[in-house]
């Protein structure tokens, strides 16, 4: 594949060429999002309609087994479902009935489409509607697709949240919605800061249960906390809500710019903003200062994983002094990450999609100090002498906001320190 022919100039405020590649992708499919979503939304069950591979992926991607019975499962398609000997819809109804009988605590049931269910065109929207008629109001039945033929990794959360939007209560009231799932502690911190700025009506999508989902109207404003929410953004805008565009709240600078966009949208005074943010800003700066020396001048290479790559690259280059070599992302929505892109100086290679073999060639060639990649690549690259950071940890660790700025930097410092400390 000729690399240069794939470099496209994207229109926008900054003319940044993007290397687009197609080939083997070493990324998860959207089903993987269920691993955190089922803990985040505490009265929801995620029922994947798929194959044994889907079930195996979910338990393998989690890496650890969750002790309590998880609120997800796979209705595994069998030969007779495919051969039309069994009515797949009847089979699904039966499995749902068993499940809801066994788990009376479930208030929201997501039917999750997979590659096989998409290919055989099993209509889960229809199934969700039918099952809703039976179980509503006790249980709300929704559907979305986490299939690998349509979604990568974090796009599963996007599809899930987008499916929730049409079910949100319409209330003709002003409110601010934070969109994207965060660890509870981080969510509380950000909500608290925004309240201190003087904004009273704040809610979060997804809410922690069915009762705490936000309401929506043409007066609603929303701001993303995660960069991978393209479809959710579109669905919210369709409802008339207005997006506040901002860089993502990673690091001291990122969090300040993110909060400032809210401040400006609401016309809050500079003084007030200063009073609310000065203490946590100072703390975040202090924490980062201590770690910066470990990262300053070190080079970094991102394999595509979660779409967090561009905002994180901005944080690492501007606040930690790292040198970006390549920033790969599975999918780039310019309208969502442009504020982060604009801030990146010394533009590295920005790549979208993947041909893993070609990208590995580039990575080895550039010999970065840290390579951010998936679990399938990390040990092989370590064995070749590179230092790696598991990308998935960036999705499973609290990294947003002021109080986590230091922890975020520390995630990248740790592998470097370890390499230094080991003498074997």
């Amino acid at each position, binding site marked *: 594949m000729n690399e240069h022919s794939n470099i496209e100039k994207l229109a926008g405020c900054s003319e940044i060429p993007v290397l687009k590649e197609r080939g083997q*992708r070493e990324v998860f*499919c959207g089903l993987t999002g269920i691993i955190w979503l089922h803990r985040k939304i505490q009265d929801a069950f995620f029922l994947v309609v798929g*194959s044994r*591979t889907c079930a195996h992926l979910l338990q393998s991607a989690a890496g650890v*087994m969750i002790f309590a019975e998880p609120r997800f499962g796979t209705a*595994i398609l069998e030969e007779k479902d495919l051969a039309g000997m069994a009515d797949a819809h009847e089979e699904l109804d039966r499995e749902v009935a068993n499940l809801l009988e066994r788990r009376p605590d479930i208030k929201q049931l997501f039917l999750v489409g997979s590659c*096989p269910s998409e*290919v055989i065109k099993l209509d889960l929207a229809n199934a969700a509607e039918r099952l809703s008629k039976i179980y509503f109001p006790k249980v709300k039945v929704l559907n979305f697709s986490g299939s*690998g033929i349509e979604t990568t990794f974090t796009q599963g959360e996007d599809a899930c949240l987008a499916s929730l939007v049409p079910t949100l209560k319409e209330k003709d009231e002003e409110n601010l919605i934070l969109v994207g799932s965060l660890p509870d502690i981080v969510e509380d911190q950000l909500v608290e800061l925004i309240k201190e700025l003087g904004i009273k009506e704040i809610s979060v999508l997804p809410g922690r249960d069915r009762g705490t989902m936000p309401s929506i109207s043409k007066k609603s404003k929303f701001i993303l906390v995660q960069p991978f929410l393209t479809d959710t953004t579109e669905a919210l805008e369709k409802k008339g809500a207005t997006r506040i565009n901002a860089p993502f709240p990673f690091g001291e600078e990122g969090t300040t710019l993110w909060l400032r966009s809210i401040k400006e949208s609401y016309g809050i005074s500079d003084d007030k903003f200063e009073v609310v943010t000065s203490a946590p800003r100072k703390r975040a700066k202090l924490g980062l200062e201590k770690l910066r020396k470990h990262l300053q001048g070190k080079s970094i290479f991102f394999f595509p994983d979660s779409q967090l790559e561009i905002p994180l690259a901005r944080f690492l280059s501007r606040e930690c002094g790292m040198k970006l070599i390549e920033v790969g992302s599975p999918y780039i929505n310019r309208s969502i990450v442009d504020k982060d892109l604009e801030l990146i100086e010394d533009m590295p290679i920005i790549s979208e999609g993947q041909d893993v073999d070609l990208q590995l060639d580039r990575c080895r060639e550039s010999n970065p100090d840290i390579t951010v990649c998936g679990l399938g690549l990390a*040990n092989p690259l370590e064995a070749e002498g590179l230092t790696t950071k598991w990308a998935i940890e960036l999705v499973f660790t609290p990294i947003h906001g002021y109080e986590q700025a230091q922890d975020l930097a520390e995630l990248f410092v740790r592998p470097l320190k370890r390499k230094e400390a080991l003498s074997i």
Partner: protein
Amino acid sequence: MKLSIWTYEGPPHVGAMRVATAMEKLHFVLHAPQGDTYADLLFTMIERGNKRPPVTYTTFQARDLGADTADLFKKACKEAVERFKPEALLVGASCTAELIQDDPGGLADALNLEIPVIPLELPSYQRKENFGTDETFYQIVKALACPQEKTEKFSVNILGPTALGFRHRDDVRELKTILDDLNIDLNIVAPLGAAPSSIKSLTKAHANIMLYPESSELACRWLKENFGMSYTEHTPIGINSTKDFIEELNQIRGVNDSFSDTSRLNFDWWSKSVDSNYFTGKRVFIFGDATHVATASRIAKEEMAFSIVGIGCYNREYARKIRSLAKVLSVDALISDDYLEVEKRIADLQPELILGSQMERHIGKRLGIPCAVISAPFHVQDHPARFSPQVGWEGANVIFDTWVHPLVMGLEEHLLGMFREDFEFNDTAGPSHLSNSKSKLNQEKDTIADNEITWAPEATKELKKIPFFVRGKAKRNTEKFAFENGHSAITKDLLYEAKAHYAR
């Protein structure tokens, strides 16, 4: 359609990957959508693999489905052969690609590659991972093995070890030592460490060791039918099974006797020493793949003097073997890949020790029952750095240590029994050498008839004096006895009447 939460086995193409990853100079092109690459991390994380599995995924997307997924597959094959220069190419489809029916074998054939192409048929909606290993290895052997002159001296192949197999790496090492002792030459080990070129010389050996039937039975049978190669059927795990295995090799070789150096075997004396008295009659439940369950059952019964309360396996292919073994042991066989069913069986049987897979370890943690891992699927912590085989004499030593480790030791158990109500040294404390384990037996849940039968305070107090590992069973038995005999209140006397009634 069947609801599954945790699975014991992956899909069959993961079995094919276990064979491909174990081998050298072989590449596997898998027609698969984005996301199926998750399987790579099984190898790089659980086994800490230091190289990528030799697998190229075509990664087709929704927009390709209307266009040409077949071209995508051909391109992936061509590029993989150019880049990795394998001696042979495996081609197959994962579950989604099976539905679009692109015929990977035919497409790869049309490329006229200069290396052998081995097409795999892996019915994802009918079969599972173990079938995938067996079938893939069989197809490789069938495609590549050819007539060869036998080695002058009696020699064997070790067939079956794969990537992600439970202790396969170490089992091979121990078995090599035993073969060395027996003065038997080793021709090749496969799939682990074998290249397609070495599969060609399989037939130089006089016989095959079928180390794990799950991954090599089809190949062994085919080699017997087509090249007259006998194969061993005893899996040498445990003292007696290892002896039988050696005897079987002697018969195949046509010798009456042979010498195997057992000086490193400690299991037999460890089991005879007085400290091991407390193992006698310990109630164990055994579950895993059929081969490991069958060998563990024999060790448990003959070499540890445990009492087996139930056995089972998740691989249906060997259901018959486990059912007939259960009959001999006078217990019920559980053939299931539904971990909820396994958990229910364990909760009902209330064993003192579970021998199982990673799944049973989690069940054990939940129920507060100690568990030792004897079978795949296993966790990264069951892939140790040290040499820890299951096979042969050293394997027996490892098994003794592993099984004993989670148990409460002899005198400690007595002390717990004597001073049951000690406020800090009591039976919910768990074994003293395992800091985190706590008995989580929830006696309240063992009630058979809610609210219909009441326990007198003195009877409840007495119940608490019964060792915790049989308390749940004692409680249910007593309630059953009371119910059947028309008592609505359980007294201390009734408790002991029930005990006498159920005495074994």
